[in-house]
């Protein structure tokens, strides 16, 4: 690119803020972990879904401020309380040239609820999907759900013919080792198509010219490279090799901001990081306690909770870039969060609780932790291990890359854990999702709270969740939510830790929108 070209582009952008697409450009960015899957239903993880959200689209989508917008559905209405009608957008093409029709929606929704799917919680299992005509689809529910489409931004629609043609109808689950065609290739309706995907090495995207919407970005190529080492990731941004890296390690914020040509974009993130405990098995898989499950005793769970010095983690490991949380949901998403307080950090009380529960000498427990998923996940787990050591609980920490980690602890891996760390952003940005996905009773088949890995169960909470779902009065609804959260807090169903801060390292060449759910969508990016 000539100097003239660059300066021309700069002038062009400066002169007309209205012009949507400036000079075409290549965006290079890095993330701390790999993109393991291109199959949109195999892993319910923000990063994977966010990357695929550039290629695939759902019936709805959300804008920079997370407000719902029409996407593949132009409009929708409630025909009756249990029948949702979606009018599909006409003239939409998949990236291979196929037409998007109602059949694709039915196919996708069936596949999403099929074996190996990690996104079954996007809609109730007994929902019937009926084709009215080629561009109209009805979703018939067994009980009313007034917020049904709110979780659907990441319920991506696949092309029926393409998937069947490549023999990829069966989903490659997170624990499967042989990927099928759809987990290595992608064919969506979105603004970008995948041109090359080497898991763990690089994924390249190219602008899809046949996109139905008008592009506001000016990218024609995007290159994604996973860089696991914090220091290397920062160096790649500072040297100009990368236009954007995330997450920025908390210790390097100042350096990136002070560099002159880069900046850090921070903001509160909606994800809550928490620890979960197996409360359902009669004997823990990984523990020195045999014949019984100590986590079934609320005193043990509370002892673990009170042994954790959350302020220490916040100050020393997160360097202030986290907000300790009493709830399993971000205070930005539930107005009455302020009424809830964490159990105080108190190792003595924790030790007394353990003694009461019959473990004066403590016990040992295996802990599973990802090391490339959340900000400082490994360091937090190590700190938790040393904090628990003070109440005589010996933690055997198993920190592993997320690909291995998720393959074990999720439903597809048989919930193979006793004590684990996870982060959760409700896709609907609503408390009901927490109650339905994380706090609801489940069976071994994953029916119920599919991501309730520890198997916490309180029928009263389930009953409240049912009422919350159909309650339309905001105040009564918040009352019910507060009641449910009070119960889960008293039961210590989980140990919430904190909401981490978003920290994206961005070159000054880029203008982009940072969504509070940490989704990085290329359609909000312009590069000068």
């Amino acid at each position: 690119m000539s100097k003239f070209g660059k300066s021309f582009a700069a002038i062009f952008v400066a002169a007309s803020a209205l012009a949507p697409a400036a000079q075409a450009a290549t965006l290079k960015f890095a993330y701390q972990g790999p993109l393991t899957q291109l199959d949109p239903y195999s892993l319910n993880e923000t990063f994977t879904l966010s990357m695929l959200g550039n290629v695939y689209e759902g019936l709805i989508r959300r804008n920079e401020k997370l407000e719902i917008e029409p996407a593949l559905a132009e409009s929708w209405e409630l025909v009756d309380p249990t029948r949702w009608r979606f009018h599909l957008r006409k003239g939409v093409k998949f990236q291979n040239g196929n037409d998007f029709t109602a059949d694709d929606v039915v196919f996708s929704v069936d596949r999403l609820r099929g074996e190996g799917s990690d996104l079954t919680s996007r809609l109730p299992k007994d929902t019937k999907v009926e084709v009215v005509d080629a561009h109209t689809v009805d979703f018939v529910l067994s009980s009313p759900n007034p917020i049904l489409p709110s979780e659907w931004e990441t319920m991506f629609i696949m092309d029926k013919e393409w998937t069947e043609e490549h023999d990829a109808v069966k989903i490659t689950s997170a624990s499967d080792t042989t990927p099928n065609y759809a987990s290595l290739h992608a064919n969506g309706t979105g603004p970008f198509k995948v041109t090359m995907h080497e898991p763990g090495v690089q994924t390249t995207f190219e602008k899809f010219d046949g996109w139905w919407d008008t592009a506001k970005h000016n990218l024609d190529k995007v290159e994604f490279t996973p860089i696991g080492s914090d220091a290397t990731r920062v160096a790649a941004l500072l040297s100009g090799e990368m236009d954007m890296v995330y997450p920025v390690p908390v210790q390097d914020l100042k350096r990136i901001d002070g560099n002159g040509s880069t900046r850090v974009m921070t903001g509160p993130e909606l994800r809550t990081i928490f620890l979960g405990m197996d409360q359902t098995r009669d004997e823990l898989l990984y523990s020195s306690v045999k014949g019984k499950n100590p986590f079934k005793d609320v005193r043990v769970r509370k002892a673990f909770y009170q042994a954790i010095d959350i302020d220490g983690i916040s100050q020393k490991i997160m360097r202030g870039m986290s907000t300790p949380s009493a709830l399993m949901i971000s205070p930005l998403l539930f107005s009455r969060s302020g009424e809830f307080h964490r159990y105080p950090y108190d190792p003595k009380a924790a030790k007394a609780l353990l003694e009461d529960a019959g473990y004066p000498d403590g016990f040992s427990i295996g802990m599973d932790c990802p090391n490339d998923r959340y900000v400082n996940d490994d360091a937090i787990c190590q700190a938790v291990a040393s904090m628990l050591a003070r109440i005589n609980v010996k933690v055997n920490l198993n920190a592993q890359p997320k690909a291995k980690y998720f393959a074990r602890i999720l439903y597809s891996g048989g919930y193979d854990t006793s004590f684990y760390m996870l982060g959760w952003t409700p896709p609907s940005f609503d408390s009901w999702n927490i109650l339905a996905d994380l706090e609801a009773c489940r069976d071994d088949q994953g029916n119920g709270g599919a991501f309730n890995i520890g198997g916490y169960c309180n029928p009263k909470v389930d009953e409240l969740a049912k009422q919350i779902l159909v309650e339309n009065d905001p105040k009564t609804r918040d009352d019910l939510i507060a009641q449910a959260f009070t119960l889960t807090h008293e039961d210590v169903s989980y140990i919430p830790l904190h909401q981490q801060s978003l920290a994206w390292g961005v070159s000054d060449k880029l203008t982009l929108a940072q969504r509070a759910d940490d989704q990085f969508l290329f359609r909000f990016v312009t590069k000068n």
Partner: protein
Amino acid sequence: MGPSGQDQTSSAAPAPSVLRRVLDSDLTHSFLRSKVTVAAATGTLLFVLAAILAPMIAPHDPFDLAGLSIMDARIPPVWMEYGEPRFLLGTDDQGRDLLSGILYGLRISLIVGICSVFAAAAIGISLGLVAGYAGGKIDALIMRIADVQLTFPAILIALLIDGAVRGIFGNLDREIFSFWILICSLALSFWVQYARTVRSSTLVEKNKEYVQAARVIGIPSVIIMIRHILPNVLGPVFVIATINLALAIVTEATLSFLGVGMPSTQPSLGTLISIGNDFLYSGEWWIAIFPGVALAVLVLNVNLLGDWLRDALNPKLR
């Protein structure tokens, strides 16, 4: 030469005679003459002592998780602002005292290094003896395997073995297994040099009269190899072992740095450097630098010793 020759004939077992030769011969003389070597030996000895006595001299026990406090994390060395006398060289990101971490890390690095050198020497010497003594197809087979392995860098082989073992046995119980996996992968990466050296010396020795005499009176091959040839080919092995010790320590550090060595709950020097690497940009230099310096000085000392031993045992330089 005279007295040592007498010693050799007077003692019945060949093994102690080698030991005596090392102690009595002009090695001692050449050792005392080189100031660098004496300094290197003293340094190495200090490192070994520090490692052995770590539980006594370290101010904290870095493996005792209950003794760590997250509020002590990232405290700078004592002479800097915000430094604390409790932590002479500062602390890492988990509040672990760096000085204690280095002492204990030194321990793990040295144990892994020494064990893997012994294991590699055992494999290499046996294969080299067999190859040299048996000759023919067995020789060709063993040496071709060695040739193939020499085309890969040792670190790559260590990574492969480490990865394969972890893949097969899973990741659990890392604290116990990491140690043994490391030693195995290092041993299997470094045996070739021993095998080649021992084989070439064996080729020379096996045609000498004392071996032929032993063969004539019907001593089994295994006994000839172990009791007759082995003592006479060990000289060069000591040199390789010393130099490889430094190499093994560095390789262990590299593997740990790459995250496939010792876990961070039981840090070796490489693990400590790896932890510190993430903080280099943010001004917390001490977490990476101090373990790095310790590693560099240790390896330098061992290498100097190895160099001296090589020169001293080289008949051409005498």
